[in-house]
């Protein structure tokens, strides 16, 4: 028996980056300030010194936005690993790891809750689950959320946080973009408000489908938002990208977003938007 045992397996690199790390004190990824962890959490996981927004889980997101309890939708949907995919690791193992890490069966939590008293369908993506990638389960859950929003005439809020379509489900993942967009076409015709909230990061097929289709598109500050990832673009044009490229503020300047809103002002702002759009 080993004398020393690691209590938890270390988080993968992309996870370590932005989630508020464990421990009494944490170091801000942006200003490098050493912060009392509780002070960060009490500040909605925003750095009290420089306002850097730490990445948060889907469930914490719902907690921050909803007035109280919410009713989770389609909690039991799980991928059947339709391609029996395996790379350096079997996809079925990745799904199992994702579940262990996040407590969810896939990369999105959808719910009905109230925001400032307004009954709303809310879906939030979970980056900790295979990079928030979209396969058939995410596609199905978003499509069902859209349909619920239409049938009960409740506004829809989708919080994106994703690297894009999920390679391990191949072209099925790609088709979720069309499936969700077709559902959104109906919501559009039914004149139900859809607010898209883009958080760090929102790229690939998620940006190129529902994340950019909000009646109102809102982003958190400093979020990476784009179609192609920065590395791919650098390889294509063979030059370094300018500072701030593909960040929320850049997209606002280029007309792709309605507003960039600090997490601490987010709920108030979304509620105000809903008031201006609802009967």
């Amino acid at each position, binding site marked *: 028996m080993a004398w020393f045992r690691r209590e938890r397996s270390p988080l993968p690199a992309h996870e370590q980056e932005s989630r508020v790390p464990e421990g009494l004190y944490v170091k801000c990824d942006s200003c490098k300030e050493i912060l009392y962890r509780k002070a960060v959490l009490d500040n909605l996981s925003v750095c009290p010194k420089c306002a850097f927004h730490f990445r948060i889980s889907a469930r914490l997101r719902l907690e921050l936005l909803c007035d109280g309890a919410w009713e989770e939708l389609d909690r039991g949907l799980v991928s059947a690993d*339709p391609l029996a995919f395996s790379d350096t690791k079997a996809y079925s193992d990745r799904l199992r790891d994702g579940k262990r890490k996040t407590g969810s069966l896939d990369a999105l939590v959808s719910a009905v809750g109230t925001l400032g008293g307004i009954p709303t369908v809310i879906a939030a993506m979970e980056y900790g689950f295979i990079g928030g990638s979209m396969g058939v389960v995410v596609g199905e859950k978003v499509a069902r959320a859209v349909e619920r929003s239409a049938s009960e005439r409740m506004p829809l809020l989708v919080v994106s946080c994703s690297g894009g379509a999920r*390679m391990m489900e191949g*072209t099925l993942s*790609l088709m979720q*973009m069309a499936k969700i967009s077709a559902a959104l076409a109906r919501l559009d015709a039914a004149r139900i408000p859809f607010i898209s909230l883009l958080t760090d990061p929102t790229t690939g*097929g998620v940006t*190129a489908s529902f994340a950019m289709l909000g009646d109102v598109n809102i982003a958190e500050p400093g979020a990476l938002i784009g*179609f192609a990832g920065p590395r791919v673009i650098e390889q294509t044009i063979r030059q370094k990208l300018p500072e701030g490229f593909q960040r929320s503020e850049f997209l606002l300047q280029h007309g792709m977003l309605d507003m960039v809103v600090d997490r601490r002002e987010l709920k108030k702002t979304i509620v105000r938007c809903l008031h201006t759009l609802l009967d």
Partner: protein
Amino acid sequence: MPEDYEAPLLELEKKIDELASQPAAPAVEAEISRLRGELSEKRRQVFASLTPWQKTQVARHPGRPYTLDYVNALFTEFTELHGDRRFAEDPALVCGFAFYKERPVAVLGHQKGRDTKQKIYRNFGMPKPEGYRKALRVMKLAEKFSRPVITFVDTPGAYPGLDAEERGQAEAIAYNLREMAALRVPIIVNVTGEGGSGGALAIAVGDRVNMLEHAVYSVISPEGCASILWRDAGRAPEAADAMKITASDLAALGLVDEIVPEPAGGAQTDPEALFRTLDAVIDAQLRELTAVPPESLPGARHDKFRRMGRLGTEFLETT
């Protein structure tokens, strides 16, 4: 550069050429004819059992017909329209109106170039946002004037460049997906070569989706997938296999409606034969789709894509 699957065929062709250069004699003639038979049998065999990675190479073959070749072969009076009315003209995606067997239609598709100059002019068939916005403008015109839309898909992907990002590549694609889903005219999609991810899908939300036998359609290129998952672009053949990107795989998953057979050796060996086959497919589908009331099309198209990712097959519902 010859691809690996071509090696045995090239060897036979070389033998035939060598014999043909010899002085004519009955024995030589007989041998040549025997080898020709062997070559065509071999070609049939090779092309009937291409791996997904080999199909990717066939799909990218520079001799394959491109959109304007289909337009010339299957349509008359093609009238190209240009520009998105917002920013620019994009030669990587060609759009216009034409006649298909005396019936007025809108036709559009990705356009690649054959020589270096044309490749650069067409940006290797990778549209920028203005290309997608032009395509939607023409599709909306088609709706306004009740013209069915026929599209040809053949792109490595939407252009991943700085300017494309600045002008909202993601928004342009997303908007096309939503608006195509609601278009009140028939849409027939033909994936003829590379179906490169969102850049392909942005003109591929159709009532019928056809795919050429050796075309591929994927969420990311095999090289891209391999470099992310295996951290080695050289493992693209494995990625091509794992992602299930061929016409037969996609038809089995219910993502593609009809596989269009190619002549042995691929579309480039006998484009005329391919045009005839594809022509019959499009003609039949157009008859079906123009027979239904146009207002019922968006509903049926929605339902078709809504079924992609089926309960019990691709995902399960647990308690």
